[in-house]
């Protein structure tokens, strides 16, 4: 009988074929992103020429709106999907290149403060999300995924934790949908709250980096406020990302002790495997910039390359956000995520305002 079982032959995809598959989607990202940039330049000028009162909408928001409109009306056709999924690649390349605009001293100074804030945020967020999960009677592993997603770094953290604690696919889909939906809401609410409270670029950037879960949305939420806020949001978010290995390891050890996951053998190798390598790339470029490996014009060129990479990312954020898919995931995990996010956003806002008063930002 066993002889009758046939193993399906999986044909490996050739690298050239894989490369060809991403091209349509990358072109779509570039078209949507560049259209956002053209709209920023032209809509404002057109409104001014016709004496209309029209708010100045940044290319970031235009790119996200265009992507959202496509994704939620005609949808993203299959041929573009592989390429659209590369938005995360452009985000990480953009963050590494952004390192050229940071001097090592600034990173150490701000990184030190943000490390303390990140530690407080992670501890508070995990404790609160675990409490909420119990109150709403969510499955314990789903609660763990939501807690990691909101405390550390959104989708990457959920995927890393799912593998380590052997959670169900359904639980990770729930958590990812909740985190993405709340990230999309943060894009529209954070800048409004920031302007309403007259937050400085530094305080707002710290807040966006601490409270917005997914790296792409945190970068976009910062860029929607100002260039300086985006720089800080990326720095703080990268500090949070750097913690991913430790948090996932702690969860893996906990679930292994409950007999519901495999135990972790080599902990150092586990940490290295989970560590986001782009954080190291960002630091290395910043070291090179600090020691004048690049001249002023070259730093400007690298900063512009980083902006182009982020433009593709912002288009991707809109294109991959589909509200009807999110609705299908159910209300309870979303409610837990939403309550948790609102409380975490309020808590981190108090935290950064306190730090702002303490350090005179």
């Amino acid at each position, binding site marked *: 009988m066993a002889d009758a079982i046939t193993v399906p032959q999986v044909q490996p995809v050739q690298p050239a074929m894989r490369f060809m598959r991403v091209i349509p989607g990358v072109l779509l990202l570039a078209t949507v992103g560049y259209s956002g940039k053209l709209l920023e330049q032209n809509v404002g000028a057109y409104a001014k020429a016709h004496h209309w009162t029209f708010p100045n909408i940044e290319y970031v928001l235009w790119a996200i709106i265009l992507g959202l409109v496509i994704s939620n009306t005609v949808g993203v056709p299959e041929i573009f999907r592989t390429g659209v999924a590369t938005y995360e690649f452009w985000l990480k*390349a953009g963050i590494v290149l952004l390192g*050229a605009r940071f001097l090592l001293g600034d990173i150490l100074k701000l990184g030190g403060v943000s490390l303390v804030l990140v530690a407080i945020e992670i501890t508070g967020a995990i404790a609160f999300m675990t409490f909420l999960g119990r109150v709403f009677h969510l499955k314990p592993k789903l609660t763990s995924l939501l807690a990691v997603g909101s405390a550390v770094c959104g989708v990457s953290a959920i995927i890393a934790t799912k593998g380590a604690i052997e959670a169900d696919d359904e639980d990770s889909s729930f958590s990812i949908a909740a985190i993405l939906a709340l990230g999309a809401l943060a894009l529209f609410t954070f800048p409004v709250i920031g302007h309403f409270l007259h937050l400085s670029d530094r305080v707002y950037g710290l807040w966006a980096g601490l409270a917005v879960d997914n790296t792409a949305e945190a970068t976009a939420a910062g860029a929607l406020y100002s260039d300086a806020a985006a720089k800080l949001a990326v720095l703080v978010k990268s500090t949070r990302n750097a913690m991913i290995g430790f948090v996932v390891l702690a969860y893996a050890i906990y679930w292994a002790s409950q007999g519901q996951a495999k135990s972790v053998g080599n902990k150092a190798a586990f940490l290295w495997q989970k560590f986001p390598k782009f954080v190291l790339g960002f630091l290395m470029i910043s070291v090179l910039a600090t020691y004048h490996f*690049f001249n002023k014009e070259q730093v400007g060129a690298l900063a512009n390359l980083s902006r182009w990479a982020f433009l593709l990312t912002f288009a991707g954020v809109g294109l991959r956000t589909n509200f009807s898919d999110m609705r299908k995931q159910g209300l309870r995990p979303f409610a837990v995520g939403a309550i948790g996010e609102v409380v975490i956003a309020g808590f981190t806002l108090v935290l950064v305002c306190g730090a702002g008063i303490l350090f005179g930002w």
Partner: protein
Amino acid sequence: MSAELEAGKKESRWKLSLDTWAVLVAFLLALLVRTGVFKHIPW
């Protein structure tokens, strides 16, 4: 079959992650800017 599986495992062990690719591409771009291949990037 087991040899194929072994080869597959070896290949996946050497496969680079998305993060690593992003870092490598960013470094390559930085090098091209540093060596003057890309002199001016407009925005």
